[in-house]
């Protein structure tokens, strides 16, 4: 199956390893990602004020590029997904604004493209059972806490393809890969997102809530689908012990990295060096 692919800025830069892993792992299960011929930044946040034309132009532009290339566009960056999905819905449901926007970006776009998160495609188009069949090196004994963040869950009416209170798609994928997802209650709590640039200390506490909960549930690692969540969960651990005595650090993976490993792919380009908490001891101990 071929699908248009929008990498977005983060996966093109700091999230390159995530991107490499996504491309390799999806290819291995028969999902061929065709990068959009031309694309631009989606804007990184969905505008929340009513007069949002200007800020919708960028994601609309991406959607037009996607339309020119096929009926569905996917992305692995949850933020990009959130922005594109909501923009598309907005365009579909607001005929007047749609016309203004079209005039603005000089296009004729009615919202005909389907925007799907990569995990959603893996679950519904490829199927986790099919993924499981391709597993070469099961992530046996890996107790992993799946972390979903906000962007694929909220607002549910606009973006969710999973239960916003108790999502399970990532857990099911990990199960398919042979890992043991732990049940913990904060898989859908916010990690602080862009507060990381303005109030890192607040982000740290938010991250602590999540990680502590994962640890209580017995997790050895966290796995996520969002590059900003990965950064916050990973980076904020550095000074954590200073504020929370006895805090034990946890490696934070992208799901695609673990997927690549389990499928027995070459994982050398998965950006391991950008992890703040070294993932290698854990991987070594698991023989991966």
């Amino acid at each position, binding site marked *: 199956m071929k699908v248009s692919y929008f990498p977005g800025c983060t996966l093109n830069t700091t999230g390159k390893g995530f991107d490499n892993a996504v491309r390799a792992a999806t290819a291995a299960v028969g999902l061929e990602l065709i990068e959009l011929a031309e694309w631009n930044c989606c804007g990184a946040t969905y505008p929340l004020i009513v007069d949002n034309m200007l800020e919708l132009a960028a994601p609309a532009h991406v959607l037009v590029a996607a339309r020119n290339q096929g009926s569905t566009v996917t992305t692995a960056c949850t933020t990009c997904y959130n922005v594109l999905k909501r923009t598309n819905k907005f365009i579909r449901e607001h005929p007047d604004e749609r016309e203004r926007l079209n005039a603005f970006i000089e296009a004729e776009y009615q919202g005909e493209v389907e925007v799907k998160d990569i995990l959603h495609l893996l679950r519904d188009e490829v199927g986790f059972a099919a993924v499981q069949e391709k597993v070469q090196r099961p992530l046996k004994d890996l107790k992993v806490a799946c972390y979903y963040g906000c962007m694929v869950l909220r607002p549910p009416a606009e973006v969710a393809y999973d*239960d*916003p*209170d*108790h999502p399970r798609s990532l857990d099911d994928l990990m199960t398919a890969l042979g890992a043991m997802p732990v049940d*913990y*209650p*904060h898989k859908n709590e916010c990690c602080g997102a862009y507060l990381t640039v303005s109030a890192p200390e607040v982000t740290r506490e938010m991250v602590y809530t999540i990680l502590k*909960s994962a640890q*209580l*549930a017995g997790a050895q690692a966290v796995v996520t689908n969002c590059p900003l969540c990965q950064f916050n969960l990973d980076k904020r651990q550095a000074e954590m012990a200073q504020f929370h005595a006895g805090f034990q650090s946890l490696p934070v993976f992208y799901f695609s990295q673990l997927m690549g490993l389990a499928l027995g792919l070459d994982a050398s380009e998965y950006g391991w060096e950008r992890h703040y908490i070294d993932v290698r001891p854990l991987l070594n101990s698991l023989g991966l």
Partner: protein
Amino acid sequence: MKRIGIFVCHCGTNIAGTIDIARVIEEIQKFPEVVCALDYKYMCSDPGQQLIRDHIRDDKLDALIVAACSPAMHETTFRKTAATAGVNPYQTEIANIREQSSWVHQKQREAATNKAIETIRTIVAKVHYNQSLVPFYLPLVKRALVIGGGIAGMQAALDIADAGYPVVLVEQSSGLGGRMGQLSGIYLNFEAAPDLLSQTIEAVTHHPNIQVLTNAEVTQVGGYVGNFTVHVEQRTPEPPEPASATGVVPGNPVSYSFDIGAIVVATGYDLYRKERLGEYGGGRYPDVIDGLQFEAMLRRDGPTGGLIRRPSDGRIPKEVVWVQCAGSRDPELHMPYCSKVCCMYVAKQAMLYKRQVPEGQATVFYIDIRSQGKGYEEFVQRAMTEHDVLYVRGKASKVFQEDGRVKVWGVDTLTGLPVEVEADLVVLATATVARSDAQELGQRLRISMDEHGFFNEAHPKLRPVESLTAGVFLAGAAQFPKDIPETVAQASAAASKVLSLFSQRQMVQEPTIAYVDPEICSGCGLCIPACPYEARTMHEWRHIAVVNAALCQGCGACTVVCPNKACQVRNLTPVQILAMMEAYL
């Protein structure tokens, strides 16, 4: 020639504030056959009606039109007025110039006035052809059916049976008592509900006039007020009933058929499924339970023998949290209404918990405390002051299990602090909802329900226990969540309506219904499926359609499908309708 009088009501300022009454009077006086046209501030008042009677006498009227509010409001009033002054009530018509004119054209005085005049003009044309009619009299079966064996149904049954009439009480489950039977104690006194309830159950079971059918369901309802035919099916019958059940193998359903004069619907409520409250972990965590589950724990005859134990490990919970409005007051995601009884039962449960576990902590998250009932406010105050129940004003947002405890994230909107409670047990006061099978029963009984599945009363203020279907009455939480005293009062009220009905010698039916002209009817049968009230049958040997006068509601559906105009509604004939059209055009 008729002698028509027209009486125009101001309805205070309701009509007169918009419509130019003087001009209306001036115009309508010119209409044919109109002998007098008068106006009055409130035509429905005593002097207003006297005015009408005086003019019937003085002007020798034989037909009248009251231009006022909707006929649903006062048609009966004015028809009675006419009758008392010697005019056939069916020579009286209402011209609705309030709902259909003054109210809808409030800012267009001119247009509203013209519309009122035109409306009256058409009614004058109709009245010209009105016939004098007399009501039908029909037999009346003085036996009542009560559906539901909870406190509402039992109370209604008892009141009717005490008055000497036979009652059939149908209960779906295997025993009487309903939801009240699932409760531990009642709000204000801690007498166990089962004790109080058992007296009522006893009285019902042994009442010579009450036939109790448990494990039974009403499967079919035919007929009409005073003459319903009701089929009841009973699964695995109790010790066989005399006569009707003889020879039936236990375990097979037994069918009963009853002639019934009036029906009381008292089918009660369900709780909103806690599984639908994902953020509260309903159905995920064993120590997150609903209000009725906690009641079961408090019951001496319950699964824990009356001891409060948390389901996961049987330990005594030291921290218990109640989450109010779980699914209530939430138009966006769940039910928009307030479930009415939660505030009180939560206060009661918290108090009972503290009595059993004095060192425990009880915390209640609420939005507004609703303790409006006799002694209720004082009761909640006692929960706070004497039992140290901590009330926190703020809706909880998340309940989750971590490290063997159930944690509740809430807020205290009064200090402005987000709060967390590590609980051993969380009780969700889930919304009170209509029973899932209410819809089906409603259709069977032909009674309407609101968008949430509660049965509709005939009028929200003045006819709270009647349905819009004659002879079918409502009691208890099937109509809307209500507490026990309210339910009991309403049940007695429904009984009163039944007793009033049964006090009549026979049923009276309005004559303004359909009839079939036997000369013209070709027996094509088109009107039979067209009738929504099943009032039509084919005469066995004459091969023409006949009308069951008791079922016909005069809706006119048959007149539309009849190719020969053999079906007509009395006092609303095609001749009249055309005359009205002509008058208007």
